[in-house]
């Protein structure tokens, strides 16, 4: 700043002391030490005002700017007041604090000064600077007095997102182009375009910010963000701005220092510098620049510069020597990810590339053999999983085998690799190789539980039970609580017992079974204690070693046994001994433990078993035995079957049974009909079963049927539908003699309650609709919605009697059929 001071009177030249003082003052002024410069020129001004006053004013202005930059507004105003006293009127006393020296709090102090300058300034450059100070220093839009500043600040406060465009556009339009704030409009539009993903437009807007604006300091960085940098290589200032934009201002200096090293292929030194200066490096998984930088450094090693052993060694020295477990895990993760590189394909190129990378990593990283083996095992695991998903895969098997061979070669003690190879062999067809491999593996790892269990299982499947038992017992010494081992021991002992029985050694067999029972574990699902007992009895009965055991067994265990085992027992006894007496005794013990309609259903199922002896000499007694059992337990059945839903469940469950057994049930059904002779579903079921006392086509209310179907469980519904289908087939075969499936039913499956209002229920002309209905069931079963199902049933039963039963006598004399289904 030069001040033209008028020459009033001639003055004497400076003395040497004054010259020295002036020199030191100028030195202070150059170094920005305005207070000391002011003191020096103040004393000179007393004797040499024409020469010292301009320097004094300049020192005071610098001091005032410094104060403003520090936020000391009142002190700066005092200095300005002093300057107005001493300076000529034409002197420009505008305060323009130097950029880079304005502290955060001082920005707000600039606003009133900027407003004054904005009003007084006639030069555009000064106006732009004042406008920028006003915008950047304002705490709120209401603070500055300039209307354009208020509009800009309001728009900035609203935001430059797309959602705020409607609000901000009128505000920005209110700023005229000649306004010193107009470049803020361009900046605002640039930010909006950048946010909305239009970098080209954003760059155009940013380029229109004038160079003398404070905003221009950020423009190179903004242009770089838009992909349109001003220079090919970013300047340090741009890098610092970008780091500030990325919320990592402290990373700028390390990056600037590492950049030339990296570009000059001194990656090792750059890595060392970065690891020492960038905090938080080698933290994976986070969404930060440090994480990206870590990935960049590792990727550079793994993918791009695998041959740069210096760099690789530096990287892995740092990582391996790091006490941070995360870093180690990160590299491990990277290695593991390589194992997935050939996840999907059979492309051998990828496979070889992956292996090459693994070898390179292992070599450079000097990984331990165990680590290398682990990597190859992971790779093999991927291939084995691929084989399970795609059994026809041609390359996965050889690749897995190759990887496992590598894994075992690196670490022969890698049990996981051995077991995986075992899995791989078990998938093949060469069982003898698999068996030999397992035997060798057992010799190699005699104290490994998993190996012993696998060998034991394999031996059981091969029926070499003694060897299996030996393996399982060895495994039990290592782990006494593993259920697989106890289960295996049981299987092995059972096998030995069966072999002994087969070889006519019942004593040995019994002892094996007794041992098995002693070691039986109830938690073992496959061979529970009950099943063991059943097997023991069956085996003894087969060999005739203990005739009295059966009764003893029934008395002791049947009241507590699960029903499925009771049935199994009954069937096995019958099969083995061909004596129905055992069934009878079993059932006598069985029924008290059963309840509800399932009791009768089980009974009928057992009777069916009895009838399976049709070709045996005992078949003649089957009906008599069944009748005796029924007579003995009739009261029991009647006591439990008391509700309609139980009876219907019973009927639905037993529709497959043959008529003699159903005849046993008929008293129960008749008893229920005595209560409600118009029950539509029971009438339908009875008609379907062709009970001899059914004499007329029963009428079925579709809503009743529908209600039951809606309330019943799905298996029951399915059974009923199957029943209907069977019924339709029977009708088709017996009466019409044509295949219903060849017909294409064109039924409207949506139930219309008014569709059959005009039909006569006894009219046999509706047979065709029945056929259509059953055919529709046949076709639509399994994909019909409940609503359509109900509608279909309405079509079937709502308007006509059941075909095929029309000539039977009315079983319900005195109870007229229901006239019509309800309309609503």
């Amino acid at each position, binding site marked *: 700043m030069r001040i033209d001071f008028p020459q009033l009177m001639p003055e004497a030249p400076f003395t040497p002391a004054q010259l020295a003082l002036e020199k030191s003052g100028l030195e202070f002024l150059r170094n920005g030490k305005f207070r000391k410069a002011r003191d020096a020129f103040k004393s000179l001004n007393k004797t040499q005002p024409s020469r010292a006053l301009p320097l004094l004013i300049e020192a005071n202005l610098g001091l005032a700017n410094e104060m403003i930059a520090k936020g000391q507004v009142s002190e700066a105003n005092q200095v300005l007041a002093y300057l107005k006293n001493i300076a000529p009127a034409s002197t420009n006393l505008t305060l323009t604090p130097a950029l880079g020296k304005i502290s955060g709090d001082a920005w707000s102090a600039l606003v009133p000064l900027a407003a004054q300058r904005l009003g007084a300034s006639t030069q555009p450059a000064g106006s732009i600077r004042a406008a920028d100070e006003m915008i950047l220093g304002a705490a709120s839009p209401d603070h500055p007095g300039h209307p354009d500043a208020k509009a800009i600040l309001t728009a900035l406060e609203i935001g430059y997102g797309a959602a705020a465009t409607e609000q901000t556009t009128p505000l920005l339009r209110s700023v005229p182009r000649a306004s010193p704030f107009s470049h803020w409009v361009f900046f605002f539009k640039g930010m909006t375009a950048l946010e909305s993903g239009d970098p080209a437009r954003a760059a155009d807007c940013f380029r229109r910010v004038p160079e003398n604006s404070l905003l221009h300091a950020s423009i190179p960085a903004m242009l770089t963000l838009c992909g349109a940098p001003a220079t090919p290589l970013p300047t340090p200032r741009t890098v610092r701005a970008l780091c500030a934009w990325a919320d990592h201002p402290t990373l700028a200096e390390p*990056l600037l220092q590492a950049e030339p090293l990296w570009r000059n292929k001194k990656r090792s030194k750059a890595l060392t510098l970065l690891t020492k200066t960038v905090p938080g490096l080698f933290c994976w998984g986070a969404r930060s620049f440090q994480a990206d930088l870590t990935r960049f450094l590792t990727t*550079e090693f793994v993918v791009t510069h695998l041959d740069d052993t210096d760099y690789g060694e530096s990287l892995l020295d740092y990582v391996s020597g790091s006490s941070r477990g995360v870093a180690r895990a990160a590299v491990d993760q990277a290695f593991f990810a390589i194992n997935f590189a050939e*996840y999907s394909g059979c492309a051998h190129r990828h496979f070889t590339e992956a292996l090459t990378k693994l070898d390179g990593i292992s070599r450079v990283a000097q990984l331990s053999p165990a680590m290398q083996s682990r990597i190859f095992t992971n790779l093999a695991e991927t291939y084995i999983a691929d084989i399970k998903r795609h059994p026809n895969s041609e390359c996965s098997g050889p690749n897995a085998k190759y990887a496992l061979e590598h894994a075992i070669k690196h670490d022969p003690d890698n049990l996981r690799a051995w077991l995986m190879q075992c899995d791989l062999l078990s998938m093949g067809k060469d069982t003898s190789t698999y068996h030999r491999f397992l035997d060798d593996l057992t010799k190699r790892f005699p104290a490994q539980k998993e190996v012993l269990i696998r060998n034991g299982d394999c031996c059981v499947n091969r029926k070499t039970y003694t060897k299996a038992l030996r393996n399982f017992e060895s495994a039990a010494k290592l782990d006494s609580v593993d259920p697989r081992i106890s289960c295996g021991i049981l299987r092995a002992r059972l096998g030995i017992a069966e072999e002994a029985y087969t070889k006519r050694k019942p004593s040995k067999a019994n002892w094996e079974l007794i041992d098995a029972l002693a070691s039986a574990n109830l938690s073992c699902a496959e061979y529970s204690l009950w099943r063991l007992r059943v097997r023991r009895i069956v085996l003894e009965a087969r060999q005739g070693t203990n005739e009295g055991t059966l009764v003893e067994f029934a008395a002791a265990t049947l009241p507590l046994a699960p029903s499925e085992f009771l049935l199994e027992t009954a069937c096995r006894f019958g099969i083995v001994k061909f004596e129905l007496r055992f069934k009878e005794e079993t059932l006598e013990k069985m029924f008290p433990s059963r309840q509800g309609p399932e009791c009768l259903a089980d009974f009928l199922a057992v009777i069916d078993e009895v009838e399976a002896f049709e070709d045996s000499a005992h078949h003649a007694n089957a009906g008599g035995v069944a009748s005796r059992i029924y007579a003995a337990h009739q009261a029991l059945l009647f006591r439990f079957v008391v509700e309609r839903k139980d009876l219907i469940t019973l009927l639905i469950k037993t529709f497959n049974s043959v008529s003699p057994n159903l005849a046993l049930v008929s008293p129960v059904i008749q008893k229920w009909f005595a209560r409600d002779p118009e029950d539509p579903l029971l009438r339908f079921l009875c008609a379907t079963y062709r009970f001899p006392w059914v004499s007329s086509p029963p009428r079925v209310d579709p809503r009743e049927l529908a209600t039951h179907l809606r309330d019943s469980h799905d298996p029951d519904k399915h059974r009923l539908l199957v029943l209907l289908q069977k019924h339709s087939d029977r009708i088709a075969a017996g009466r019409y003699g044509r295949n219903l499936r060849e017909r294409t039913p064109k039924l409207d499956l949506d139930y219309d309650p008014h569709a059959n209002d005009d039909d006569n229920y006894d009219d046999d002309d509706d047979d065709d609709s029945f056929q259509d209905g059953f055919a529709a069931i046949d076709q639509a079963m399994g994909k019909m919605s409940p609503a359509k199902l109900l509608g279909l049933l309405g079509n079937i039963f709502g308007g006509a009697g059941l075909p095929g039963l029309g000539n039977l006598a009315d079983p319900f004399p005195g109870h007229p059929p229901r006239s019509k289904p309800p309309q609503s």
Partner: protein
Amino acid sequence: MNPYLILDVPDSADDQAIRSAYLTQLRRHSPDTDPVGFGRVQTAYQNIKDIEARCRWWFFEHAESPESPIALLIEREQTRPHTARPWPELRSFLRHCTTLH
């Protein structure tokens, strides 16, 4: 272009997180208003949508690695979704830029 940055997800993101981020970015870059961004987001998603794609991208298609750490910084900031920064944050950035040399 780093798909993780384009979708704004960390390295450790699983399939579900990546899918969610993809849908978020699609809403931001619709094919009508920003076809370039839309294509970029789609490509990014295809590159890392599941473990298979991620591994393939990571080890076999990740050829366009930045050439230097600063290039990484620039690429990261260019590809990262530019969310609308509130004015106080932007003002701090602009003030900070005036202090740079």
